[in-house]
């Protein structure tokens, strides 16, 4: 199939960029849900929220410092606390340098933590780091369709490896367990805005997007320059018949996938915290205790009855038993999941006890 020159020259380089943008947008939406859950549990878990704030501010400040380092502005002041971070450059550089350091500040927190996780994954995952070109697309690979399919295929290969690693994660393996903890912790802080003591309307997805939008619109020339560089890189790759261009964006896509999974895991933990808050007294400890106990029991059981999916089934047992225990406690110890009939019966019962 003959590729149109307009497609190759104009549209093909856009394909991986759009792919990354799509994943990044999904990331933003999940961050929003995380921020909502954090604001809901803030009153009861103030130190925990301060900790997640600190993680967020830490990444933000480190990214800003990294921006100043990359632009050779130097760092004269580096301050970080649980609710505030500040980095000042040694030399005030204007123009493109300032723009790049600001880009690091606004976009860095989305990708830098994921980069740390990707480095860890490189040592833990057996496969998935290949940039794949589907064989049927050899002729099409420098068109919009070809580029997006190659990008998608690379992401698919990575996602396959990553998810099979997560499903078969061995929580009794110190490195695997450490990675999971790191993923949850980084997922908690993978956001560019601060959850304050009081609810602030401006701190939401739109505020983050507004920051990035201002950055882009304030100096559109720099954005054009960035696009021009991307296009030049694409043409060089095309000219040398290499897969470099799509590989670069595939790595960004991998980072987005890692971020999304970290955020989903962090969301699940936050949801568990929010749900267990409704269980009165010391009963709320049980769902948390169920997690290690059920996993260890499952592993011991499968040690004597070996199967092919020992680790995956053990993780499944952990998740299901935690959900079951939480549901049971919510039903028994709180008013959640109680029907009108149940409540009437309870009222009758308590009335009867009083009469006696």
């Amino acid at each position: 199939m003959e590729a149109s020159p307009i497609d190759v020259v104009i549209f093909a380089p856009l394909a991986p960029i759009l792919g990354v943008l799509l994943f990044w947008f999904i990331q933003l939406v999940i961050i929003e849900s995380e921020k909502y859950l954090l604001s809901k549990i803030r009153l009861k878990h103030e130190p925990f929220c301060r900790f997640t704030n600190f993680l967020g501010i830490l990444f933000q400040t480190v990214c800003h410092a990294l921006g100043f380092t990359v632009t050779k502005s130097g760092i004269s002041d580096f301050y970080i606390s649980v609710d505030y971070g500040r980095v000042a450059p040694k030399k005030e550089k204007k123009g493109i340098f300032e723009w790049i350091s600001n880009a690091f500040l606004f976009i860095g927190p989305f990708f830098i933590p994921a980069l740390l996780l990707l480095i860890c994954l490189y040592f833990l995952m057996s496969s998935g780091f290949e940039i794949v070109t589907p064989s049927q697309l050899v002729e099409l690979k420098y068109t919009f369709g070809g580029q997006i399919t190659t990008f998608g295929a690379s992401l698919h290969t990575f996602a396959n490896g990553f998810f099979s690693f997560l499903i078969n994660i061995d929580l009794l393996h110190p490195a695997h367990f450490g990675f999971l903890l790191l993923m949850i912790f980084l997922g908690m802080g993978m956001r560019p805005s601060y959850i304050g003591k009081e609810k602030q309307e401006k701190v939401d997805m739109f505020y983050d997007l507004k920051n990035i939008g201002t950055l882009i619109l304030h100096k559109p020339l720099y954005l054009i320059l960035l696009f021009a560089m991307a296009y030049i890189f694409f043409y060089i790759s095309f000219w040398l018949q290499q897969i470099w261009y799509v590989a670069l964006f595939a790595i960004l896509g991998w980072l987005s996938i890692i971020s999304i999974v970290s955020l989903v895991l962090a969301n699940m933990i936050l949801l568990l915290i929010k749900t267990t808050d409704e269980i009165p007294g010391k009963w709320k400890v049980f769902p948390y205790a169920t997690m290690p106990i059920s996993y260890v029991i499952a592993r011991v059981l499968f040690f004597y009855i070996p199967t092919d999916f020992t680790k995956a089934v053990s993780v499944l047992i952990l998740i299901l038993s935690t959900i079951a225990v939480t549901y049971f406690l919510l039903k028994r110890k709180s008013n959640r999941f109680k029907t009108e009939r149940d409540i009437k019966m309870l009222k009758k019962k308590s009335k009867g006890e009083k009469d006696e």
Partner: protein
Amino acid sequence: MNEDELLKGEKVEKILSPHPLSFMKYQSLSLFLIIWGIVAGWLINFSEWSNLFSDNEWWYPLLVWGLVLLLAGVIASLLTVRWSIFFLYLGVFAGGTALMLSAGWLDASGLFIPFYTVSISIIGFLFVEAYRRSHKYIISNQRITFKGGIVTKRERTLRYDKITDINAKQSIIGQIFGFGTITPISQSGFGLGSDKSFAGGGVQLGEKKLKLFGLFGGGKEVQTPRARSYYELHGVYPYKEIKKLVEEMVQGNVITPYQQEQVAFQKEQVDIQKQMRDLLKMQSESKMDQEEQEEGSEEQES
């Protein structure tokens, strides 16, 4: 604080203890032991490298365990400039080795090492907790009393008017959990420590007979607020509230420049009044003398 320990007119404002996480630097030593104990157990028994330990000499696991422990001790000691950490880990290693050799558990190192390390870390945790609980800070309207120590009980009493300045610090964990350390510095300098650093070098020049040897060095000392945990308000919660309370107490007990002016003015007033009284006294005395003289002359005339 007992009733009989209170001074006349003394009222206790707050009785405090350090926050459970305020001794994290000691707890982290035990935490490392727990983590390393579990990792060592996994490494020797279940990892893909377990054959390396089972197929070789009995001292292989002991060597790996001890080397990592001592290496961690050296790194921690260098970072904190406190060699006691290294000697602590050396003690743990030596104790474990001695126990293994004396009990003849050489073949059971895969089981002994993790259990021993985790047990020692639990003991460490309990010791740190006991040490934390031995601390008590009493803030009254007249003074601050600091108490602490497991075996030897130490106590410091500091009157607010003797406090020259207050140093306060809050670590990241402190900021997250809302605790911090307040070090009141007394007029005698109690509460101040010093950081010392030294650099030195040597040069040797020449060969065979002619040798020149030079040595150069330098050192500096920086004064920094520092005290033992039982001589400061270590890791108190809620930090901001306590800091404000102590500052208010100091402010209330220390005379301000305005108050000093007022006192000087009142003193001046008293002096003037005294002078006036003396003058009046002198005046009345001279008047009385005059009257007496007049009376005397009248009597003589009559």
